[in-house]
């Protein structure tokens, strides 16, 4: 019991510390990339304090954190205080709780701890192993995170915040559906909701889900961007329109929690993309493993290598997130909604249908044609992607008419203005 | 090549499909092209009908050689005691000795069973089983046929039949429909309801073809009603016109009277025969091979008379015969192509068709035959008299239609095989020349801007030569001038009557009918040519509605006219003297039966049908020609040459109120108004008052008590759902408390 508690605490500490540190440093990376894309150098001065050692600016996150924590906090007079205080906590909680089920490696080798500790070996590198509802848990926690934003916006009692909150609520609820649809395809292919099982399935077959379900990957990626409110979907805090969106009225450590939560969302989304679609810790030839359930064949080098590969993949995805930010402009809000409801959900459904059919009949098709059915699945997956994309392009569902309605009577507030 | 089983359903199916297509797409897609599906479907149907006709002909001529010699029926003696249960009245008793080997040609196409009720009817053992006394005389196989049936099942099969009668009717109907549809393209051009018209026409063609090819009474009745519906829709096609709407209503209601009789007749048929099929099924069909070949006899006596008269009532309604003829002249409010197609050529002949189809039933009842003949004769004469004085061209033609239909019934009522075939032949030729005349009248109306009163125009032959010549052909055909269709079809009718007058037991009755027919022929010639002279001769006058440039109609209208004129010229000569039509029709089971009966009668009397009286027939023909020419001459004198002043003559006749009698259509509308409409209206008013005052008052009184009670409880219903929920909770509380304590 004690050993298990300690094991859990160690893992929690590892994950929390790692993720928080990572998010701090990812801020630095984000600033670097922002600078580089704009032909600047980015922060590169803050190194070890009181010395001239700059270390390419690696001390910057510490300085930022300290600054935000020590800064005076201004609480506006007009806010709804309980909600205003509750919001950052909820946002942060929602962001951090996701990591309970996200594996950051596979397992540790057996036999490294004494029997008397009664540990369940091999140690799985995830805080809550064996949680049977892993994937839905992710969705549930993601749903909780909406509250923080909504409450922050409402509690701030400020129209920019409120607009941001309302937009955010609509966006997050809408994009939960394509997110779920993207996940469902993978879950269907795996037959389990557990993330380690999803990785193991990809590793065992050697076919990553991105190859098997490219359409699902696309849908999931777009939905993940939107759920993380990253550009081009950062409507809730669109600076040009809403000052700062729902965190306009926040400052100090509360602001830091909100900002860190955004990075945590991004990290979680990157982890999920890697786990669901990019094979997790798997690389062909390096970390192939039929062994994941028992971990018998896992040796220390393999275990470490898997962690490294997984984190490398995650980092790559995060870099993509950051580069994407500077590559494409923000969507208009109506376009955002159109994309969710009229593009991504049909795509997700199409993907789900194709995956279901292939899971059910794939081996028969394979047997009939003499070709591995996973090849068929990949081919059909890409064909589906092209077909639905082409259909979407032709049907053009994301177009909306935003022009003012001149056939309606002038709204009263405009009429007053005219007078 | 084409199987009958394929052809037969296709013929009605195509117009139905066209009707659906036009109905669905007409208002927004087809619009001015609405005629395309209709004409195409009817055209193909027409082609298929001709193919069917040919196929039937091939089948008959192929199978005529190898008809089974005998079905081994024993002769059934006619017993005097048979009368009490209706078997074997004198014609029926005699016919069994005919051998009845030939039962004609028929082919049944069963599409599906619409309804099936097991053990619906009464057991008809007493109908089919021989009397116990006669049982010994029957052969072994006869007893197997005559086994007492269990209670028969009531089955409605969607069964179509192909036999010569149906084939001829189908060909006639679809051909005339095609011609009229083509004509309508020009005539209805630019009308607001263009698509609607062609949808209705297609629907009508579907209904009519189904009617003539139906093989049971239910289906016949259904499509009998369906053509009535189409007729109603098309009469009231211009429903904005109050006259058209009223005419449609009148037609519909008058037809209901006839159809009620028809329905009763069908019920009686069911209770009598235990089936409604024409053909043999599990039970021998009413007109089926079994019954016709003598295995299951027809019911005679009062039952037969009742059945026949009820059916006749239906036929009277549909074919506008004497008491129920009043709707047809009013039906001329519809578009002229409709008058030509429905109210002259096809639908109104449904009654004739039905009576002809049921010939064996009528043969079982002499009284019914005579009544048919009397009604036909009366109608023919009466309508002709009325037509003399009418001034509306279409009404003249309408009354002539009634008159000609009367001729047909006269022929059917003659009760001889020759009469039946003559009636059908008249139906066939009449379809062409009456359609021609109506279409000609439509052409005139088209040119005159909708005016149809012959007093308003004259001398139109100069501006409408084609219409003039074709109309002339039609008039000659209708009048029955020698080589034209009317002569060849009307003459056999008169001959049949003449024969019947000389041979029948009721000779004097038929003699008077023969005279009425002659008189009718004269009057027909007179009024036909009266209208013709007044319209096309004399000084050129056009009504102001026609505008300055009254002109001949477009080719799409004159083309059908010419086609029909050619048919009128040729069809009589082609089928009349050669007797092809008659020979062909004789292979119809019903008529085959009549022939067998006639042969048997002839054998009984030792005479030979149709041979001995050749001289008499020539005399009849010459007499009729003379009468017709006299009528034409008289009209020419009155209206062309003005040797006789028609007004003076009218004034002279009117001293005995004769002219007014004819002009006011013998006051039939007024009589109906006084005897039916007003009493019904008064009764309705009384009933309404009674209902409103007495019955409603009582009911209201009963309703008052709950109302008072409700007023006391009303405040509980305060409209707030939560109070209702609270009441529920309190109720639940009481319930739980009672349960737990």
């Amino acid at each position: 019991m004690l050993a298990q508690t300690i094991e859990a605490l160690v893992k929690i500490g590892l994950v929390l510390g790692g993720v928080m540190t990572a998010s701090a440093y990812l801020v630095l990376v984000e600033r670097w990339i922002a600078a580089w894309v704009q032909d600047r150098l980015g922060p590169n001065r803050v190194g070890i304090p009181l010395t001239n050692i700059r270390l390419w600016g690696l001390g910057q996150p510490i300085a930022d954190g300290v600054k935000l924590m020590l800064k005076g906090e201004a609480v506006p007079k007009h806010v709804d205080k309980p909600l205003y205080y509750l919001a950052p906590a909820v946002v942060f909680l929602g962001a951090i709780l996701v990591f309970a089920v996200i594996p950051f490696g596979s397992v540790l080798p057996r036999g490294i701890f004494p029997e008397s500790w009664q540990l369940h070996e091999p140690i799985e590198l995830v805080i809550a192993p064996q949680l049977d509802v892993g994937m839905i848990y992710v969705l549930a926690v993601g749903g909780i995170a909406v509250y923080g934003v909504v409450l922050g916006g409402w509690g701030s009692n400020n129209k920019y915040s409120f607009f941001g909150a309302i937009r955010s609520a609509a966006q997050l609820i809408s994009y939960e559906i394509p997110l779920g649809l993207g996940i469902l395809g993978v879950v269907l292919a795996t037959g389990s909701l557990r993330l380690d099982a999803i990785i193991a399935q990809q590793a065992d077959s050697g076919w990553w889900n991105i190859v098997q379900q490219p359409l699902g990957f696309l849908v999931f990626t777009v939905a993940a961007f939107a759920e993380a409110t990253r550009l081009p979907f950062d409507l809730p805090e669109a600076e040009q329109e809403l000052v700062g969106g729902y965190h306009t009225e926040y400052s100090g450590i509360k602001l830091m929690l909100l900002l860190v939560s955004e990075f945590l969302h991004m990290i979680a989304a990157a982890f999920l993309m890697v786990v669901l679609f990019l094979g997790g810790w798997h690389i062909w030839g390096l970390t192939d493993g039929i062994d994941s359930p028992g971990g018998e064949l896992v040796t220390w080098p393999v275990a470490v290598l898997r962690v490294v590969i997984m984190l490398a993949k995650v980092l790559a995805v995060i870099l993509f997130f950051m580069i994407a930010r500077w590559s494409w402009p923000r969507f208009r809000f109506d376009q955002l909604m159109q994309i969710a409801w009229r593009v991504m959900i049909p795509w997700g459904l199409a993907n789900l249908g194709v995956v279901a059919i292939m899971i059910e009949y794939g081996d028969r098709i394979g047997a009939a044609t003499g070709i591995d059915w996973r090849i068929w699945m990949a081919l059909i997956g890409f064909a589906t992607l092209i077909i639905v994309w082409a259909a979407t392009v032709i049907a053009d569902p994301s177009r909306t008419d935003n022009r003012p309605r001149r056939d309606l009577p002038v709204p009263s507030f405009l009429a007053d203005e005219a007078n | 090549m084409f199987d009958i089983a394929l052809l037969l359903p296709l013929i009605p199916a195509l117009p139905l499909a066209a009707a659906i297509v036009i109905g669905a797409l007409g208002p927004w897609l087809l619009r001015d092209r609405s005629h395309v599906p209709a004409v195409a479907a009817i055209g193909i149907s027409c082609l298929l009908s001709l193919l069917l006709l040919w196929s039937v002909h091939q089948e008959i001529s192929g199978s005529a050689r190898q008809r089974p010699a005998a079905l081994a029926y024993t002769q059934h003696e006619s017993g005097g005691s048979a009368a009490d249960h209706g078997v074997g009245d004198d014609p029926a008793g005699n016919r069994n000795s005919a051998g009845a080997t030939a039962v004609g040609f028929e082919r049944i196409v069963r599409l599906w069973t619409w309804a099936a009720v097991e053990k619906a009817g009464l057991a008809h053992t007493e109908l089919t089983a021989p009397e116990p006394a006669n049982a010994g005389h029957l052969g072994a196989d006869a007893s197997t046929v005559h086994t007492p049936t269990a209670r028969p099942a009531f089955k409605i099969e969607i069964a179509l039949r192909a036999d010569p009668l149906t084939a001829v009717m189908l060909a006639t109907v679809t051909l005339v429909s095609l011609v009229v549809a083509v004509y309508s393209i020009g005539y209805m051009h630019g009308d607001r309801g263009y698509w609607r018209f062609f949808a209705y026409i297609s629907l009508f063609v579907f209904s009519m073809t189904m009617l003539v090819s139906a093989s049971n009474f239910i289906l016949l009745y259904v499509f009998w009603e369906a053509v009535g519906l189409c007729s109603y829709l098309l009469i009231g096609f211009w429903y904005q016109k109050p006259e058209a709407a009223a005419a449609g209503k009148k037609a519909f209601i008058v037809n209901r009277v006839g159809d009620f009789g028809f329905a009763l007749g069908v019920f009686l048929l069911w209770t009598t025969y235990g089936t409604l099929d024409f053909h043999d099924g599990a039970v021998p069909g009413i007109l089926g091979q079994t019954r016709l070949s003598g295995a299951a006899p027809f019911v005679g006596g009062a039952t037969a008379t009742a059945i026949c008269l009820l059916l006749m009532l239906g036929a009277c309604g549909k074919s506008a015969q004497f008491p129920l003829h009043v709707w047809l002249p009013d039906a001329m409010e519809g578009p002229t192509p409709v008058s030509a197609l429905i109210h002259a050529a096809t639908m109104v002949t449904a009654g004739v068709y039905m009576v002809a189809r049921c010939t064996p039933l009528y043969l079982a009842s002499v009284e019914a035959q005579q009544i048919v003949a009397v009604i036909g004769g009366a109608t023919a004469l009466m309508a002709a008299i009325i037509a003399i004085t009418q001034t509306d061209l279409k009404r003249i033609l309408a009354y002539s239609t009634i008159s000609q239909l009367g001729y047909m019934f006269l022929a059917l009522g003659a009760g001889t095989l020759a009469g039946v075939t003559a009636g059908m032949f008249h139906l066939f030729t009449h379809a062409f020349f009456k359609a021609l005349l109506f279409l000609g009248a439509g052409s005139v109306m088209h040119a005159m801007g909708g005016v149809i009163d012959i007093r308003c125009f004259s001398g139109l032959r100069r501006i409408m030569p084609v219409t003039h010549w074709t109309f002339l052909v039609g008039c000659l055909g209708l009048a029955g001038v020698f080589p034209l269709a009317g002569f060849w079809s009307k003459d056999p009718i008169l001959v049949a009557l003449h024969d019947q007058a000389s041979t029948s037991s009721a000779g004097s009755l038929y003699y008077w009918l023969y005279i009425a027919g002659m008189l009718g022929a004269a009057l027909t010639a007179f009024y036909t040519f009266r209208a013709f002279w007044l319209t096309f001769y004399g000084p050129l006058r056009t009504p102001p509605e026609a505008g300055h440039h009254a002109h001949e109609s477009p080719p799409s209208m004159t083309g059908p006219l010419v086609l029909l004129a050619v048919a009128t010229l040729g069809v009589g000569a082609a089928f009349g003297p050669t007797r092809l039509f008659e020979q062909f029709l004789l292979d119809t089971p019903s008529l085959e039966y009549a022939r067998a009966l006639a042969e048997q009668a002839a054998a009984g009397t030792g005479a030979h049908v149709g041979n001995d009286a050749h001289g008499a027939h020539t005399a009849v023909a010459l007499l009729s020609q003379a009468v017709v020419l006299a009528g034409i001459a008289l009209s020419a004198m009155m209206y062309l040459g003005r040797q006789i002043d028609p007004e003076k003559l009218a004034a002279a006749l009117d001293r005995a109120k004769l002219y007014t009698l004819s002009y006011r259509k013998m006051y039939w509308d007024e009589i109906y108004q006084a005897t039916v409409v007003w009493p019904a209206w008064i009764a309705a008013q009384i009933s309404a008052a009674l209902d409103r005052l007495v019955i409603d008052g009582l009911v209201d009184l009963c309703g008052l008590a709950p109302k008072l009670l409700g007023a006391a409880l009303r405040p509980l219903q305060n409209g707030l759902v939560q109070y209702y929920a609270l009441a529920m909770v309190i109720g639940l509380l009481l319930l739980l408390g009672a349960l737990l304590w």
Partner: protein
Amino acid sequence: MDPHDKSIRWIKPPELGLLERSYLPLFLDGITTTLRHLFSRKKTVQFPDEPHQIPDPLLYRGVHRLNRDEQGRVKCVACFLCATACPAHCIDIVAAESPWPDREKYPESFTIDELRCIFCGMCEEACPVDAIELTSLYDLSGKSREEMIFDKEKLLSVYDQTIDKEPMRSRRQTAQPAGARSTLPTDRRDGLPTDNDPS
């Protein structure tokens, strides 16, 4: 804005082609631009380590200086034109009787509050004797407000520091090429150039 306003001209949005609707060109365009810039040469100047190169010192408006004439005297004649022209009211002049015969007044004290100054160059424009000028010194900083109020001596010392690099305006103008405006087309009726003119 009243959408019923008749004066509004409604502009039709551009129709997108199939390819553009597929989002792929935009996608590729965005990512290639980003990647190109990601690896391109950076333009940042590492300021304290590398000196900032001002492209044209003559155009740059930095710290003020008070010019001296040939005899080393302050050129200013205390006419107050610069103080009048200054939109930030940062120039404070105390005039006094000139000790020299060639002018009536001279500034007894001449103070510029560099914290209030907006470096617009109006004073330089206004000065009739080219006494006040803006140099290209940009790294002006101080540890107190008082330090940032430049008096006459300090302004003159700026002149002493910078005179070698930046000659006085009067001398600059001689080096200027012939006036650009004289080359403008004059055949137009109003004689004014337009942006649309193809020449």
